[in-house]
């Protein structure tokens, strides 16, 4: 019986896919897939795909390097997916959708426009160049236009060269270390848990009604159930705000325990459950490329005085990226915190150096299980800062501060420079005297940043500065200082309806103080609490102005 050639081929491939011979098969393919010139083309199923098929039907010469991915709607390609292509080493990405007005689902074309505009902003800051990402729209009867777009785009990308991000290799899953979980349990002395329940009675997620309990996770992991899906879900739901550690009579650092469990899970190849489609983790992983030259400070107002030869460095943090990402969503302006921080330094005649190609400190990678890339970033950062001969690093971000000052040395990375929080420096300078603060016609309350008030155990630092201000009033919320409730999220992990509920609770506490200005000290607190205020049902009721303490100080400080 003659064998069907197609059947033979597919069984041949199936055999390769299901046996150990798969590895050499991929390795043989790898050079062509991974290292060649690569353009990813996301192509909407409707209008443009019809045009694309017309090209295929007449065997038009579509450039080889274009790898087409057919998608149901261009509007569904999130910023995270667009960035992920670049993280994996794509040289160019084109999102091709339907012409405005011809979208089958209505909002697809305008969504695609927003996503591409934001992602291009991010690429520009990252130093990859916004030109590498393009949006184009076509009607079904425009195959010629589509072809010339593809050829032009391919030529443009070719002229730009391959870019700094190398193609990512297949991730190696390390051999299972059977004792790793036990090591983590022992390292944090989780066995000391007495199952007393003080953690669950304080956990903001539990109090928001989520069936979640820190001690239950501890018990399950001790019982060897780490691979149960609901245990893993809880490991990724934890806010790592550290309130349970504050309450634990046995001193079990639960947040650090969760951090290490996440690392264990991701090294095993279990997927990380992260918010925003993993956009921010993707962004930070892209920054681990040695050759990347981000353009972190391009946007800085001209009147800010800096000195490239200074031994003092101002480390800004990721605020510029946040503002681009949340541009259409929350309208946050967290980079104002950086400008105001620099203005405060200038006020005291401190003209710091800036790393023009500053990278992320890596906080979010560390807390979402990617320790390897965190360490890469940390080494790159420390090397860059040391090369500049920096003696003191100043930052206004509590996460950067905690990560640089505490986590880097804990992870074995020697700094060779001093890390100072901006508030410490301002407090010291203001304490010298001859400086006062203008009357502020507002009633204030304060949202503690977990990394400063709990992890660094310094809830008094921002309060000292608030005490120097001249507002109408300053009233604490019922839960404050080391007992403060989380802003609802950390490291872009674990955002759900319950974290929203706890944010609502927090904002209501702020309103309960009779204040009209909620002062924060972390850009992420601002983003998360603003997000809660976008609630369509509660929006107006929750609305309260938010301003970072750095900005409040900069706006009211004056020489006596």
């Amino acid at each position: 019986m003659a064998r069907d050639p197609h059947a033979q081929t597919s069984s041949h491939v199936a055999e390769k896919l299901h046996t150990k011979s798969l590895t050499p098969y991929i390795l043989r393919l790898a050079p062509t897939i991974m290292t060649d010139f690569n353009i990813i083309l996301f192509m909407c199923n409707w209008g443009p795909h019809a045009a694309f098929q017309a090209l295929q039907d007449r065997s038009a010469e579509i450039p080889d390097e274009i790898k087409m991915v057919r998608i149901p709607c261009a509007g569904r390609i999130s910023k995270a997916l667009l960035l992920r292509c670049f993280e994996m080493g794509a040289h160019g990405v084109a999102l091709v959708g339907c012409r405005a007005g011809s979208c089958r689902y209505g909002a697809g074309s305008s969504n695609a426009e927003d996503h591409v505009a934001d992602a291009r902003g991010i690429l520009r800051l990252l130093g990859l160049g916004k030109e590498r990402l393009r949006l184009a729209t076509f009607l079904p009867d425009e195959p010629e236009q589509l072809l010339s777009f593809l050829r032009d785009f391919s030529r443009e990308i070719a002229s730009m060269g391959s870019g700094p991000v190398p193609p990512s290799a297949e991730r190696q899953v390390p051999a299972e270390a059977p004792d790793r979980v036990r090591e983590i349990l022992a390292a944090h002395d989780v066995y000391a848990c007495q199952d007393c329940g003080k953690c669950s009675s304080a956990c903001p997620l539990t109090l928001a009604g989520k069936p979640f309990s820190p001690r239950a996770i501890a018990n399950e992991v001790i019982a060897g159930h780490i691979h149960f899906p609901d245990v893993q879900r809880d490991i990724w739901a934890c806010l790592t705000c550290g309130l349970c550690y504050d309450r634990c009579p046995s001193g079990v650092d639960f947040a650090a325990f969760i951090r290490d469990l996440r690392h264990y899970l991701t090294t095993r190849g279990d997927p990380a459950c992260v918010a925003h489609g993993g956009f921010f983790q993707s962004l930070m992983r892209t920054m681990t490329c040695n050759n990347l030259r981000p353009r972190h400070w391009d946007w800085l107002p001209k009147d800010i005085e800096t000195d490239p030869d200074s031994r003092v460095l101002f480390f800004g943090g990721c605020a510029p990226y946040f503002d681009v990402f949340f541009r259409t969503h929350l309208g946050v302006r967290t980079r104002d915190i950086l400008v105001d921080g620099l203005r405060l330094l200038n006020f005291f005649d401190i003209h710091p150096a800036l790393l023009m190609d500053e990278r992320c400190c890596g906080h979010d990678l560390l807390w979402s299980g990617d320790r390897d890339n965190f360490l890469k970033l940390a080494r790159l950062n420390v090397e860059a800062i040391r090369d500049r001969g920096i003696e003191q690093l100043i930052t206004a971000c509590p996460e950067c501060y905690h990560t640089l000052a505490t986590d880097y040395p804990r992870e074995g990375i020697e700094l060779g420079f001093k890390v100072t929080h901006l508030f410490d420096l301002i407090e010291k300078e203001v304490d010298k005297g001859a400086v006062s603060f203008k009357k502020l016609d507002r009633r204030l309350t304060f949202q503690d940043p977990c990394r400063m008030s709990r992890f660094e155990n310094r809830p008094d630092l921002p309060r000292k500065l608030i005490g120097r201000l001249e507002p109408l009033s300053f009233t604490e919320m019922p839960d404050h200082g080391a007992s403060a409730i989380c802003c609802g999220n950390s490291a872009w992990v674990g955002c759900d309806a319950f974290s929203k509920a706890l944010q609502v609770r927090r904002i209501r506490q702020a309103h309960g103080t009779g204040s009209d200005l909620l002062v924060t000290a972390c850009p992420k607190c601002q983003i998360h609490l603003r997000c809660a205020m976008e609630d369509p049902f509660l929006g107006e009721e929750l609305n309260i102005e938010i301003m970072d303490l750095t900005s409040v100080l900069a706006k009211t400080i004056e020489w006596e």
Partner: protein
Amino acid sequence: MTKTGAAGRRQEIVFTGFGGQGIILAGRILGKAAVLGDHRESTLVQAYGPEARGGACSAQVIIADQAIHYPYVRRPDILACMSQAGFDKFIGQMKQGGTLLIDKDLVQPKGFSGDYFSIPSSRMAEELGRVMMANIIMLGFFTAVTGTVSVDAARDAVMKSVPKGTEEMNANAFNKGCDYGVAVLKGREKKAKGKTGA
């Protein structure tokens, strides 16, 4: 000792306040700093008498590059007041355009129309834990604002003049006053350029 000739600088200084504030000690430290640290000439006249038991008291210091033949101060170039009574008594003697330094909380410069420098030295000393260190804070402020003696010389003289075991506390107080003075000068400079805020 270096002599710079007849044209050398000469400044007359009066420290005044309540008896017990350490006014005389401040004057003595100032003179020591000038002589031992900056290698210049200095004299001190202390106001003894009933006023030194709680009333207005004063220390008259002269610092000059050449030998001082007459140690009494008639027209002070610099007047540092830590009590209202001291201000009232000495302000009339101060030279036209002289520098006035006062404790912000203890002295109201009534009837004085010129520019002056003020520091809440007693309040700062209370915050440091000992109100009796107000004189050293004032001395630090005096050093930073007037530049009559060098900061290092003044700090050394403080360390050598205070009771054993209180050196660190007094160095702290001196630095507080000095920092305040530097901040005041910087603030004035910024204001002159029209930059008041951040």
